């Protein structure tokens, strides 16, 4: 066994641990691979470390994944770009393992290295690697090869380019669906590097094959290829070749394919241009909005706003709006919910008149939906409509909806509506709030569920921020402070919590004159939990109020608490006292 100089000891340990039994230690060593490489020097890294890693291919996935990642940035450690090709063999092996994430990472690293390699090295080393993987015995190698063509292709000489295109075509017809899926996924990237002439012939025929694959999962991925390919083609070619495919896909037998189209159609519109969008894609989209599978309608409904935005308002009103009306009474609550989450965005697209005339009834009916998510989704996007038509038209329907949600028996629904109260308050204005919502905010402070009380306290603070301390003093603080005398200690605790949140917002003066007396009074509560929470609140108030107040009011109170019979109260009181001393010292 060799003896190692003292300063090298940590590195020696690192190197040894490349083969440790403990996977965490191996992982740690791999993560430090660059340190090891620098310790070994460039030449030994090339001649020893890299071959060592190439053999180390039956390790756990985590280690292989880390290796693949490290090798991607290893070019400097092997002596720069001219030696980059020595990194290919270990990554080639990693491209063949059966764990998908390891392969993906290896492909990513290979692409990163390939992008830096010199042209001749690519021809000598990288392209042969791609070809080897593409003809690999196991499907795993062939799957990986698909993601490397776009790096290999541009620097290949003409003959080799033809060969690469042929090989890619074969991969698209591989026996294994996994390989075809990978070929479909990477087609867009590869196509972007192929010359226009071959794009229209070779790539399009490959694409046609994929769109007619009998595996649904392959066709699904071909849908994604449509948008990418469409952007590469001239508009007239796109209309001639891609458009029919899209229209076909939108009527595919498989709902999953149609679902993909519904999700992608918006991007496809950009590729085919406005004219064809109008004549071909709008009808296709309308069909998807009326699909008999709810999943497809959900996907389509979620895109109505985006889609309307690229159409003219007239087209949107003529074609999309009737479907939107139907969807607002869809039998599936998820469809209605998806629609409600985006429909408010249609208001700016359609303009004021059309919104009032056409959209408003839909908003109102969705606000009365039996499913709370739908109502919440409408309320959460209120600001978008407010800008177009003002809130007044909605406010009459809004209030019952809000009240109903505020009293929903599911606390998560109540929680969701509380989150939106500050937004509503800012949109509806002080007057509306004072009349209608103030009482609700107080009611939540006495909710049966802690999370709601907690959110309600936070809500009070946000309202004070929104409307300012003066308004708060007039409209909410008195009601809040009243509750400090509630017979239930949990509600008293909520108020203490609210006070600690309000104090920084309301400022020194209000805090010391209005809030502090209540807190000090609460220190005489009979429940210890209240008392130690008083200590905590006082601690949070100390930095806010004048020092004289601390000395005259807070400290004596804390001192008293620090002699309480209850151990927890004493603990928090002394903690608060300590921090008050620290504040004093630092100031």
């Amino acid at each position, binding site marked *: 066994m060799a003896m190692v100089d003292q300063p*090298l000891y940590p590195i020696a*340990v690192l*190197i040894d641990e490349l083969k440790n039994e403990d996977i965490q230690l191996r992982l740690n060593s791999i993560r430090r691979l660059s340190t090891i490489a620098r310790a070994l020097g460039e030449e030994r890294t090339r001649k020893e470390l890299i071959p060592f890693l190439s*053999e180390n291919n039956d390790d756990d996935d985590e280690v292989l994944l880390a290796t693949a990642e490290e090798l991607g940035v290893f070019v400097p450690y092997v002596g720069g770009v001219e030696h980059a090709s020595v990194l290919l063999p270990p990554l080639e092996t990693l491209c063949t393992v059966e764990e998908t994430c390891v392969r993906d990472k290896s492909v990513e690293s290979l692409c990163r290295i390939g992008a830096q390699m010199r042209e001749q090295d690519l021809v000598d080393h990288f392209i042969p690697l791609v070809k080897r993987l593409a003809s690999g015995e196991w499907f795993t190698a062939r799957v990986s090869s698909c993601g490397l063509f776009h790096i290999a292709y541009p620097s290949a000489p003409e003959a080799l380019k033809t060969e690469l295109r042929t090989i890619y075509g074969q991969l698209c017809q591989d*026996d294994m669906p996994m390989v075809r899926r990978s070929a479909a996924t990477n087609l867009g990237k590869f196509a972007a590097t192929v010359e226009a002439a071959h794009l229209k012939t070779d790539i399009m025929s490959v694409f046609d094959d994929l769109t007619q694959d*009998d595996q649904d999962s392959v066709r699904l991925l071909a849908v994604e290829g449509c948008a990418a390919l469409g952007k590469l083609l001239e508009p007239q070619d796109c209309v001639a070749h891609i458009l029919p495919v899209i229209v076909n896909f939108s009527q*595919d037998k498989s709902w999953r394919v149609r679902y993909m189209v519904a999700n992608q159609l918006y991007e496809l519109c950009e590729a085919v241009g406005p004219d064809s969008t109008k004549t071909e894609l709008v009808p296709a989209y309308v069909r998807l909005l009326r699909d008999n599978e709810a*999943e497809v309608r959900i996907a389509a409904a979620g895109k109505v706003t985006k889609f309307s935005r690229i159409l003219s308002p007239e087209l949107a009103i003529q074609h999309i709006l009737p479907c939107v009306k139907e969807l607002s009474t869809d039998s599936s609550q998820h469809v209605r919910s998806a629609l409600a989450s985006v429909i408010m965005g249609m208001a700016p697209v359609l303009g004021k008149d059309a919104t009032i005339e056409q959209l408003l009834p839909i908003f109102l009916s969705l606000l009365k939906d039996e499913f709370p998510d739908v109502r919440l989704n409408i309320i959460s996007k209120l600001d978008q409509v407010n800008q177009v038509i003002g809130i007044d038209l909605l406010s009459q329907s809004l209030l019952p909806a809000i009240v109903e949600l505020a009293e929903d028996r599911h606390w998560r629904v109540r929680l969701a509506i509380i989150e939106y109260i500050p937004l509503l308050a800012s949109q509806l204005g002080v007057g509306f709030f004072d009349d209608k919502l103030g009482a609700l905010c107080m009611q939540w402070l006495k909710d049966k569920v802690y999370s709601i009380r907690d959110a309600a306290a936070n809500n009070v603070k946000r309202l004070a921020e929104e409307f300012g301390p003066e308004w708060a003093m007039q409209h909410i603080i008195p009601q809040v402070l009243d509750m400090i005398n509630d017979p239930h200690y949990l509600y008293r605790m909520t108020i203490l919590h609210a006070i600690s949140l309000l104090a920084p917002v309301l400022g020194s003066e209000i805090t010391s004159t209005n809030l502090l007396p209540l807190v000090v009074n609460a220190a005489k509560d009979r429940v210890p939990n209240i008392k130690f929470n008083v200590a905590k609140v006082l601690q949070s108030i100390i930095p806010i109020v004048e020092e004289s107040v601390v000395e005259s009011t807070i400290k004596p109170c804390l001192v008293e608490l620090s002699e309480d019979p209850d151990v927890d109260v004493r603990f928090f009181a002394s903690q608060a006292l300590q921090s008050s001393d620290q504040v004093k010292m630092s100031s």
Partner: protein
Amino acid sequence: MNGGDDVVVASEEPLQPLEWKFSQVFGERAAGEEVQEVDIISAIEFDKSGNHLATGDRGGRVVLFERTDSKDQHGSRRDLESTDYSSSRHPEFRYKTEFQSHEPEFDYLKSLEIEEKINKIKWCQTANGSVFLLSTNDKTIKFWKVQEKKVKKISDMNIDPSKAIGNGSSSSNSNSSKPHLANGGSSDKSYNYPSNDFSFPPGGLPSLRLPSVVSHETSLLARCRRVYAHAHDYHINSISNNSDGETFISADDLRINLWNLEISNQSFNIVDVKPTNMEDLTEVITSAEFHPTHCNTLAYSSSKGSIRLIDLRQSALCDSHAKLFEEQEAPGSRSFFTEIIASISDIKFAKEGRYILSRDYMTLKLWDINMDSGPVSTFRVHEYLRPKLCDLYENDSIFDKFECCLSGDGSRVSTGSYSNLFRVFGCAPGSTEATTLEASKNPTRRQVPTPSRPSRSLGNSLTRVVRRGAENTGVDANGNSFDFTTKLLHLAWHPSENSIACAAANSLYMYYA
């Protein structure tokens, strides 16, 4: 395409019945030896190439066998072991490895014991010389990888291992190294690595060396790659891989879920037959299988004797079937047992996916998926039991779930019965082949007549059916000589050859023709 023997379609004249011969037995019991409950085989499955065979048992173990006679097999570079049958051409298997797939568990929320028994095994796509399979018990499906791993011996360490073993031993080294933690996550802090500006000499440090690995031999290692759990309220009765190579289904009594092999934390419910009110429940799912080539078609069978074909393209939740296959019962034949014995215990697609084979308690039925008016053919498995249904009901045997299988070329079907018997029928047009075999070293010693003969003549042959290991014991007064306890539930047909593997309690018998 990878690693498979090419399928050799049997070219025998279909009318010529096969002559079955004993090939191998694994785990044979000596006469009178008690069977351990945990050793009883509960699942058998050949892989697609026919080079591997897996069995699962009630003890939660999975045992793998590999073919030894095939020339182009992958993964085995070892010399063929010399066996007594080395010169033969029929499939020969040898024990490859075994592993504990499932352990008994307890569901504390429902106060339910979860048995470790392996209900089903399915092979997945082979890659890189490793084999992959799914195994399931009542609740949890697991994805296994079995690979040959080099046994590593590491030499050439920088640090003398005697000084550097274990936690903190390096702290004896007075310099900067703090004890390294077993938890590698925090070891970043415990080492003082040379920082990036530490200057290494340009040629590197010659005193450092990489550990070298000397491997002498390989060993087989099974590793659980994924666990698909908590998706079934009822007992899983089947799992089946999709032809797309990335998804599979799992079926329990009331629901079928769709999984992606790579995603273990979510599945999609695609069939749900649970009524809103459980009192309205009249029918449960008994078995489900994907079409061998159409990725969007699957079939499931029910306890009422129907088979439903589902088109996954139609909708996300397949409440409505694309096709329904059931046989109208003959009028007047109805009895108390009609519904019980109609329950289908297993369905299998034939290789091309045109036909479905189903097994109910008394018969095997072959269905053409293009003909939903009735089965193409019906084979009676043990008609002589019909008068005894009452006894079978009383001892619960009537609820036994027999599996069925088809030959690779689809010309023959097979299924099990009691007394360790199994039957092979020819299903090619015009074939009258109906063979009865016994899972023993002498499969043809019992000549049970074909079902075409009147059942009365069965009396004679039955007298010769005797309990294993106790030859020549007589028949009891009622003639109930066949043995309810020795039932042959599980069997599988080799995908390309005439070879059948079947389970008799803890023993795996292999036959060829």
